[in-house]
């Protein structure tokens, strides 16, 4: 089994697990981080250290990091939180058609509550331009929510250019950076994003933990979505999951040190894989825009999607996003890029990561070529 699904989730780095262990064993950091006694204080200190580590990778302050259960929650909190704080009725949101389901579904929910949402269509290259966003603004626009890196095609939006333009116009910007953190350079000191979502399990940390960056200056204001004891500056209640948070901190710390070199290595592997597919004709690389290093999305003419996936059962790859592939519908992202249902369905997302080797890449490319050729040779629609 060759794992080429790093965009769906990354394995936990063994060093991260090692960092988590003190919070998982007896006499360690197992107390409740909100408890007022020595073991509680120790757990709290470990949480705060991790908060600083997460902040550091993003160029943020520790006090700007709110821990959540993942990017899904961060996105929900950011978008609903801002709109609730501002008042829902008539408020306008700008986003894109190729956001992650958790952004789209949140926006659709808000529409049922009276908000107006503009879903921008990406160009053929898969990117949304800052100009498109500016054109969509209205006096009622409360929020722009745009992903930094798309999870299906890896294309990156030019957030660096967009953010100051929105700041000038006084419009809040939320960025879903679940696929971006650690893979591209993010410096929130320079890029005036107001809210930014990240997730540990896309970055060799544990699943079930994420964070929302909430800028302090100028302060991004939002209403909490999880009510309770007032943890996380009142923005997100619930007992802090120390081991998860410590793991996220360790994962982000590793990326701070190694992310840039790793990104280069992974981009090279991806291109090597793409070269390896060149023995096939009539294949299409989806999303030609500038991209994060780890994703390659390819459409294969002349083969049917389900059989393609079944014939590659020894490769862990994804068709569309993991969330929607259970429903067997062709990817809405590829369709937004103009692929027809047929070709969208005959597409695979290969994504590469820390533990991918050149040998795996070569073997996988060879295997894909072979299986596509075989399926074409028995296809009634290929000549």
């Amino acid at each position: 089994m060759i794992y080429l699904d790093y965009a769906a989730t990354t394995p936990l780095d063994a060093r991260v697990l090692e960092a988590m262990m003190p919070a998982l064993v007896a006499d360690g950091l197992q107390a409740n981080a909100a408890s007022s006694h020595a073991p509680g204080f120790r757990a709290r200190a470990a949480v705060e250290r991790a908060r600083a580590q997460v902040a550091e990778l993003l160029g943020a302050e520790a006090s700007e990091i709110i821990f959540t259960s993942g990017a899904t929650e961060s996105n929900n909190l950011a978008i609903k939180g801002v709109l609730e704080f501002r008042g829902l009725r008539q408020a306008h949101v700008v986003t894109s058609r190729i956001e992650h389901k958790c952004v789209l579904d949140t926006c659709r929910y808000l529409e049922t509550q009276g908000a107006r949402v503009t879903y921008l269509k990406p160009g053929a290259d898969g990117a949304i331009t800052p100009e498109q966003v500016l054109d969509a603004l209205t006096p009622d626009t409360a929020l722009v929510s745009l992903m930094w890196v798309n999870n299906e095609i890896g294309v990156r939006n030019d957030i660096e250019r967009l953010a100051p333009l929105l700041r000038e116009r006084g419009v809040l910007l939320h960025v879903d950076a679940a696929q971006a953190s650690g893979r591209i350079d993010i410096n929130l000191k320079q890029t005036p994003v107001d809210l930014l979502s990240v997730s540990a399990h896309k970055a060799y940390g544990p699943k079930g933990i994420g964070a929302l960056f909430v800028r302090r200056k100028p302060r991004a204001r939002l209403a909490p979505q999880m009510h309770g004891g007032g943890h996380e500056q009142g923005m997100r209640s619930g007992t802090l999951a120390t081991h998860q948070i410590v793991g996220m901190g360790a994962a982000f710390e590793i990326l701070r040190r190694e992310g840039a070199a790793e990104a280069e290595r992974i981009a090279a592997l991806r291109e090597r894989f793409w070269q390896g597919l060149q023995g096939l004709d009539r294949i299409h690389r989806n999303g030609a825009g500038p991209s994060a290093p780890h994703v390659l999305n390819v459409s294969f003419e002349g083969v049917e999607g389900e059989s393609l996936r079944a014939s590659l059962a020894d490769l862990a790859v994804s068709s569309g996003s993991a969330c929607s592939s259970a429903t067997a519908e062709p990817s809405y992202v590829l369709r937004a890029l103009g692929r027809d249902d047929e070709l969208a369905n005959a597409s695979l997302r290969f994504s590469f990561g820390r533990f991918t080797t050149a040998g795996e890449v070569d073997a996988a490319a060879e295997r894909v070529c072979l299986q596509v050729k075989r399926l074409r040779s028995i296809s009634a629609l290929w000549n």
Partner: protein
Amino acid sequence: MSIEHGIDPANPFDYPQPIWSRFERCVGEAAERAGRFADGTPGVAEGRAGTPAARSVLELQLRFDGERVADARFRAYGCPSSIAVGSWIADWSIGRSASELAGLNARQLREVLEIPEDRAHCALMGEDAIKALLARRSQSSTQT
């Protein structure tokens, strides 16, 4: 990769076993009877069927030697079940007469390959392809 967790690594998508083993053979080394006969091969009858939206297509060629099928070819564009249907019919048809072939129906295909309800149209494609083939063959024999 253990069966302990309920997943058979040899059939991770959990297709019915008869479908999966046919499909595996077809996309493995031994894609028997897949493809087409060389153009102009004598005695070849052909039939084609598809799903309504033409999202899947099954193509069948049978080479008759007198009244009986001597060899067969199939091609399929569709899910693994549709490929299994084509492969199974090609094998099954060998040595059979036109009237025996005419007896094949979707119910039978579903039984033999354990095709589930939501894939019923794959089996129907098999029945339709045979029917189309026999219709074209009887048409051409009446013509000559």
